[in-house]
């Protein structure tokens, strides 16, 4: 692991989910923690997210969820990002995410899942942890 390297995280929302407040808040939290943020915004599908993640050479993808679409896109998104070299981990989170949803997305290979009420420190720590795995193999 290269401790000097600044982590890069792509922050996005999926499908027709237009609630950006969470994505913007997470972007701020990550930037405040010294993590570089690539903000991909709204109207993204798994292929556009994967394309941007590879092009921007990010260490992780963070999906902010305020609709249920993440449940149905997660497997496809994980599959596409696993094809990257090295694979890019996906973290999902948001107020709509329930403990049952967490189990469901972890089962399809999402690296971690943040539930409502997580503190900024927890969010940063989760993204650092999953990103370190990418950074090690880089």
């Amino acid at each position, binding site marked *: 692991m290269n401790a000097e390297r600044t982590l890069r995280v792509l922050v996005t929302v999926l*499908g*027709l*989910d*237009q*609630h*950006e*407040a*969470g994505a*913007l*808040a997470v972007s*701020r*939290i990550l930037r405040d923690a010294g993590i570089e943020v690539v903000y991909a915004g*709204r*109207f993204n*599908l798994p292929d556009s997210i994967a394309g941007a993640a590879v092009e921007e050479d990010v260490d992780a993808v963070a999906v902010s969820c305020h*609709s*249920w*679409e993440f*449940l*149905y*896109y997660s497997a496809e998104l994980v599959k596409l990002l696993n094809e990257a070299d090295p694979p890019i981990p996906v973290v999902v989170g948001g*107020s*709509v995410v*329930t*403990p*049952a949803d967490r189990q469901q997305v972890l089962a399809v290979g999402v690296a971690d899942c943040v*539930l*409502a*009420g997580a*503190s*900024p420190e927890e969010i940063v720590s989760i993204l650092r942890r999953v990103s370190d795995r990418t950074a090690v193999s880089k």
Partner: protein
Amino acid sequence: MERPVSADSPLRRAGRRAFYGPQDASSDYDRQLGDPGEFPYTRGTRTPRPGSERDGRGEAILRELSGEGSAQDSNAQFRYLLEHGATGLDVIGDGPTVLYMDPDHLHARHAVGNTGVSLCRAEDYVALYDGVPLDQVSISHSLPSGFAIAGIYLAATRLGHDPAAVRGSTILAPLYGEDTGYGGNLPLELHLRLATDSMEFASERMPRFHPFVEDTYFISDGSVDIVDEMALGFIEIREVTRRLVERGVEVDQFAPRIALLVNCGMDFFGEVAKIRAARRYYARMMRDDFGAVDPRSMAVNVAAHTSGATMTRPQLVNNVIRGTSQTLALYMAGVRAMEISAFDEPIRTPSKQAHIVGLRTQQIVQLETGVADVADPLGGSFYIEALTDETELSIEARVKEIEAMGTIADLHSQGFFRSLFTEAMIERSSEIDDRSRPVVGVNCHRIDEAEDTLLRDIAEERIEPAYEIATEIGAWKRGRDRELLGKALATVEEAGRDTGANVIPAIVSGFEASATMGELAGVLREAYGYPFDPLRGSERPV
């Protein structure tokens, strides 16, 4: 940028004084207040009848957000609510529908029918309103405005109602909706066109319908404060009014049908003052800036939707209490048409159980507490009057400030609104993180996730996407008369290019010729030099 609200302003809760006295509020009753039903309508737009809310003669429209799955499923939901005492309906479209998309759009695949009703065809609107007394029930539409008007107009005609008797409204997604979470990928000029044409159409054919509800909820929820909420709303009303007047429509012909749908958060007195200030500002604006002479043009009807952003995922039952506080504030501010965000709002569109709790909240406040028995019960309070005065002045200053910076189109293209909304969203989340904005259960008074079980089973019940609707619409589309469809789309595109024409009758004809909302929006985009589908998830059929 310097905001007109000073750091120690009473508008900022932290800046409010320990108490207020006569020196803090204007004492000019006739100029600033007037009786309810009289200019400047601070105390309400209607002359009240004593005790009317409790004996059933009141004006109150009780409604809850509804719509789920197909038009038929939603129709059953409507009948259930009406059977339980609702006197209005608020129809919300699912993700694709509110974005002018058909359910078979590539981006729509996992979002059909699970956060609202899927509507894209004339027959969907007919099925939606089958058996609903359209002349008695007031129907609010959280749907793309020009299309919802065309849809209910057609449904009324086919179901045997006179469109002129149809009551209700359609909200206007803000002109800057593309910047604040309501992006339909429409050019600003087309948003404006749909608004002005809807108003002209309704003033001629649906005179009891509010075709233009300035929805400041859209603008504010989760982001800007009450001053920007109202200032941005008024800037839109002013723009649309100017355009209609330029087109030669008399202000008194359309202004009586403009309504406001405002947000209501947890700042109890701030929200009451906001609504009173908004009525007064609107009355003066219509009279002094636009030359309205009909009192109905100056008396704006204010409806409200309580803030979904104040509802929290932890300790869901707390949301019932938040809804009750907001309902009380709204009744005390003289609002008589409202929806209460349901307790399961942070997770889903309302469950059947949450619907009933929302309705019962309104009924208990209306019938048991007596707060609605007397108009403007807080009027004359030093504190409320000081807040109302300051709010009106701040709104006025903010409108002037923004209008001096440029037109809506210029400011939109410069990214002004986008940065305003994004900064406000970030600021709000920072306030919660640093605990300067207390939210019970979120940043204080928390409990362990394992103990937080009350109402969770209801809220977390999942609604699967209605994949069958996308399949059905796809098959239905392939069976249409392509020649008829092609002609209809060409006609709508032509109407879109002709800025002297009204596009609403063309949309009605398009629906009748089997065109869908996604297709009609697509050809209108093309008329404005945009691609048919900027997301490239659908194609023009002919």
